[in-house]
C-alpha cells in the first residue's frame, strides 16, 4: 500500500524501513526528488549558479538551470546549498566485518583486516589473491555512517591486511544488502607490503616475517603465476602426451594481473616504498596504482613515467595536542622535551602541497580519506590551500576515481542517466563553514545530523535545518538508521 507522494507542504512522511516483511505495513520512501534553486557543480561542465536536479528510481533524470520539477517529485529547497556529485573515497576497507561492534565515529565500521581464507588454496593466509571483497563484505548497521557524514557516497573497498589482499570492489554506502551495494566488482588486485604482525629476528609468525620476505614472496608468487600461464597455454595447445597441470585458484586469479589487464593497487607512502612498488610492477609488467602516496610528490616524475595514478591519502598529519596528558617523547611534563626531527616538521608542511605538486607533474590523483572522515572537509581545504585548484580537488573525489575504477560512464558527475549519488553542502565544501547536510546514494536520501561538538550534542531526531524540507514542522527521516 503506497501513500501517494504529493508536492511538499502536504505530505507527511513517516520513517519507513523497506524490509521485505514490513512491505505491506510500512510506507515506501519517495523515489522521485527535485533539488531546486541550488548551486550545482556537475564536474562534467561549468557550475550552474542556480539550478534543479531531478532524480527518480536511483538515477539522475535531469539537471540544469531551467529544469522543472515533475509533479510527483518530493522537493528540496537548495537555496544556500551547493550540490556536488557524490564523493568517492578512492581506497579503504569499509564494510568488512570488524572485530568490535560497530559504533559510528571516525573510522567507520570497516578498516578491519579480513580474516577470511580461501578454501582449497595452495597459498597461505595473506597471500590468497583469489579472495574477493564482494564475498567478504558484511557491513554493520553503522559501518557507513561516518563516511556519509563527510559526504562520501561510494568507496573502493578491500581488506586492510595481507600481502595479496584480493580484488577490491566499488560500493555504494547505503544501508542495504550487499548485493545492492556493489557498483563494480574486481576493480584491482590489492597488494600491501606489510605482514601486520611478527617479523624480525625470530619472527613470531610464519614466513614471510620481514619486509624482505614479503618482497621475495611477491616475486615468487608472480613468477609462479607466469609459469602457470605457460603451463596452461602449453596444455591447451597440445594436451595429448602432456601431464595435466594442476588447477591453482590463486595463480588463476593472478592471470589478469600479470597480463596487465587488471591493475594492482600498491600501498606505498614513503619515497622508497613507492620506488620499490614501481620497481616491482616494472619487473613483472603490472599496471600499478599507488595508494597512500604521502611522499609521492617527491617522485612525481617517476610515477608519471610509470603512468601510475595515485590514490592520495589526504589524511594530513597534524601535531597532536600532546600537552602533558599523553606520555610524550622524553616523558617530561610541561616544557618541550626532545625537539621533533626536521623530517617530521617538513612532512607536516609538505604533505598538503603534495596533491598540487603531483597534478602539476601530470599525475592523475584521486583522494583517499584515510578513514578520518571527521577531518575530510578540512583536509580538502588544506589540499586546495596547498596548491591544488578547487576544480581538480573536486574532481579528485568524483570523476577521477570514477574514471580510474572504470565507471565514469555511470558515476562521478551530475549528468542525466547517471547514478543518483549527490552530496549536498550548506555553503561550499571548500570554504570554511561548509557543512554536509545530506547525501543521496542510488537516489536514497540520508540526512546528516549537525556535527557533534562537546557543547552541542544535537539530539538525533532534530531536523537538520529549516530550509531543508518544505514539509514544515515535520520530524522527517526518510531513511532511518536501524
Amino acid at each position, binding site marked *: 500500500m503506497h501513500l501517494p507522494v504529493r508536492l511538499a507542504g502536504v505530505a507527511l512522511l513517516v520513517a519507513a524501513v523497506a524490509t521485505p516483511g514490513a512491505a505491506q505495513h510500512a510506507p515506501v520512501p519517495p523515489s522521485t526528488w527535485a533539488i531546486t534553486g541550488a548551486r550545482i557543480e556537475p564536474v562534467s561542465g561549468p557550475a550552474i549558479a542556480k539550478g534543479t536536479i531531478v532524480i527518480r528510481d536511483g538515477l539522475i533524470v535531469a539537471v540544469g538551470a531551467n529544469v522543472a520539477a515533475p509533479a510527483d517529485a518530493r522537493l528540496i529547497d537548495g537555496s544556500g546549498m551547493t550540490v556536488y556529485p557524490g564523493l568517492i573515497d578512492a581506497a579503504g576497507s569499509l564494510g568488512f566485518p570488524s572485530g568490535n561492534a560497530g559504533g559510528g565515529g571516525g573510522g567507520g565500521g570497516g578498516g578491519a583486516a579480513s580474516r577470511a581464507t580461501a578454501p582449497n588454496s595452495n597459498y597461505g593466509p595473506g597471500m590468497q589473491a583469489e579472495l574477493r571483497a564482494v564475498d567478504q563484505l558484511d557491513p554493520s548497521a553503522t559501518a557507513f555512517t561516518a563516511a556519509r557524514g563527510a559526504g562520501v557516497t561510494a568507496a573502493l573497498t578491500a581488506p586492510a591486511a595481507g600481502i595479496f589482499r584480493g580484488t577490491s570492489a566499488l560500493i555504494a554506502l547505503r544501508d542495504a544488502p550487499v548485493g545492492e551495494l556493489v557498483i563494480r566488482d574486481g576493480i584491482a588486485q590489492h597488494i*600491501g*607490503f*606489510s605482514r*601486520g604482525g611478527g*617479523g*624480525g*629476528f*625470530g*619472527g613470531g*609468525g*610464519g*614466513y*614471510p*616475517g*620481514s*619486509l*624482505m*620476505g614479503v*618482497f*621475495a614472496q611477491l*616475486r*615468487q608468487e608472480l*613468477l*609462479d603465476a607466469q*609459469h602457470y600461464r*605457460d603451463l596452461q597455454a*602449453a596444455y591447451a*595447445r*597440445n594436451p595429448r602426451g602432456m601431464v595435466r597441470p594442476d588447477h591453482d585458484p590463486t595463480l588463476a586469479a593472478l592471470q589478469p594481473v600479470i597480463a596487465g589487464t587488471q591493475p594492482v593497487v600498491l600501498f606505498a*607512502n*614513503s619515497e*622508497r*616504498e613507492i*620506488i*620499490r612498488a614501481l*620497481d616491482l610492477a*616494472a*619487473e613483472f609488467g603490472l599496471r600499478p596504482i599507488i595508494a*597512500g602516496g604521502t611522499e609521492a610528490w617527491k617522485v612525481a*616524475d*617517476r610515477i608519471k*613515467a610509470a603512468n601510475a595514478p595515485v590514490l592520495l591519502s589526504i589524511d*594530513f*598529519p*597534524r*601535531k*597532536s*595536542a*600532546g600537552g602533558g596528558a599523553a606520555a610524550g617523547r622524553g616523558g617530561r611534563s610541561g616544557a618541550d622535551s626532545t*625537539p*621533533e*626531527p*626536521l*623530517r617530521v*616538521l617538513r612532512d*607536516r*608542511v609538505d604533505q598538503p602541497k603534495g596533491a598540487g605538486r603531483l597534478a602539476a607533474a601530470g599525475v592523475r590523483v584521486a583522494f583517499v580519506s584515510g578513514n578520518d572522515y*571527521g*577531518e575530510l572537509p578540512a583536509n580538502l581545504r588544506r589540499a586546495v590551500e596547498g596548491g591544488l585548484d578547487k576544480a581538480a580537488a573536486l574532481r579528485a573525489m568524483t570523476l577521477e576515481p570514477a574514471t580510474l575504477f572504470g565507471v565514469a560512464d555511470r558515476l562521478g558527475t551530475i549528468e542525466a542517466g547517471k547514478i543518483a549519488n549527490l552530496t549536498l553542502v550548506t555553503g561550499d565544501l571548500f570554504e570554511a563553514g561548509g557543512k554536509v547536510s545530506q547525501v543521496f546514494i542510488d537516489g536514497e536520501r540520508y540526512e546528516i545530523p549537525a556535527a557533534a561538538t*562537546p557543547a552541542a550534542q544535537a539530539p538525533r531526531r532534530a531536523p537538520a535545518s529549516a530550509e531543508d524540507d518544505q514539509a514544515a514542522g515535520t520530524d522527517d527521516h526518510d531513511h532511518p538508521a536501524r
Partner: protein
Amino acid sequence: MKTLATLVASLVVASGVAAQAPAPPTLITHATVLTVTNGTLTDTDVLLQGGKIAAIGTGLRAPAGATTIDATGQYLMPGIIDPHSHMMSDATNEGSLSVTSMVRIADVLDPTDTHIYDALAGGTTTLNILHGSANTIGGQNAVVKLKYGRTAAEMLFPGAPPGIKFALGENVTRKNSGRVIVVGQPQPQPRYPSSRMGQEEVLRDAFTRAIDYRRSWEDYRARVAKGEKNLVAPRRDLELEPLVEVLEGTRLVHAHSYRADEMLMLLELADEFGFTVQTLQHALEAYKIAPEIARHGAGISTFADMWGYKIEAYDAIPYNVAVTMRAGVLSTINSDDDGRARRLNIDAAKLVRYGGLTDDEALATITINGAKQLGVGDRVGSIEVGKDADVVLWNGHPLSVYSHPLTTFIDGEIFFDVERDKAKRAALEAERAELEAAEPNKVPTPSRGGAGRGATPPADSTWESRR
C-alpha cells in the same frame, strides 16, 4: 637467469634514472698520500677527474673547472670499506625459515638513514650490507657506496658481485628459546635446527636441492637445444637460484661464525660441494685454524678487540688478525654496528698495537682487503690511478685517535665536508624555526573538539625507519 646486479641495472634504466654526470674535477695538493698498496707519498698531488683518480704526482696542473684543495699537513687515504653492516635497511632478518636465500637486502634499503652521513663523517665510503644471523642460510647482500642524498638504486656499487649470508652457531640455534607455550593453544612450531649438527644438515640439504634444481634446468635446455617442441621451462625457484650461483662461483658466501670447529665444518662442506667460502665473518677463533682457512682460500672479517659477549665469542684474542694475516689469510676489520662504522680507523690502529702490523697492513684491513673480499678490488680500496675517486682527506694520520676526516669523496664528488657541515647548521636552525611556526606544526587550539591528530601514517606504511 639474471643476476641481481643486471636486473637492478635494467630497472634503473627502466625507471628513467639518468646516469649521474661525473663530478667536476678536484686537485688535492701537498698531501701525505697513504696509497696503501704503494706506500706513503709525502707532499704529493692527487687529481680526481671523471669520477676517477686521474693522476698522482707532484706539481700537477689543475684542469679547467677544477677546485684546488691545499692539503698541506693533511692526509689522503682511500675511503674505508666496511665488510659487515646492517645500516640503512628496513629489515635485517627473515628468520622464520632456516633457509631464506630468496630474500634480498636490496629490496629494503633505506637511503635516508642519517647514519649514512655519520659514517661518511668517519671516512667510510663503502658498506657490505648483510642479512642478519638468524638462520643458517640467510638472504642476499647489497654492496653500496654511501652516496647520501641519492636513491637506493644509485647507491648500489656498480658491478659488485652478488653475495649471500650464512650463519652458524648460537644465534641460529637460540632461535627457539624464548618461545611462549600456552597450555591449550596451538604450540608455536620450533624452527629446525636446534644444534650445530642440524646447521650442517641444512646446508647439505639446501645444496643438494640446488644441484637437483640446476640439473632440471640443464635437462630443459638440452631438450630445447635438441629441438623439442611444446616444452615449458621448470618453475623458477628463487630460494635455489642463489645457491646454484654459489656452486658456480658467481655468488660470494659471507659466513657468520665464531668457533673453530664450525668454521672447519663449513670449509670442508664447501670443498665437498666445490665452492670457496669468500669470508668468515667475526671468526674470533680463526687464529686456531689459520692454515686451514688459508688453504681453503677464504678470508676473514672480524673485530679488533670485541669479544666475550656470548659463550662462542669467549675464546678470542686481539692478535687474531695478526695471526691470520701472517698465515696468508686476507683479513679485514668490520663494524657490524652503525657506531663502529664511523671509527674503523681506530680499530685498525689497534692492530698495530696487537700483533705489530705495519701502518699499511693495518690500513689494508679497512680498505684494499675489504675491496678484494667484496670482489671490487680493481675499483676501490687504494689510491692508484684509474681507480674510483673514493678518497678521504684527514686532518691527521688516520691511525691516530686525534684525527678525523675533513672531506669525503665518492666517485670524485664530495658527500661530506666539515666546513660545509658547519655552514649548513645556521641554515638548518633557520629552517627549523620557520617550520615550527607553520600552522600544521602548531599544537591545535582547544576549540577544535579536542581532535588534534597525531601524525600517524596510514596503517599500511609500517616500514618507515623510526629513529
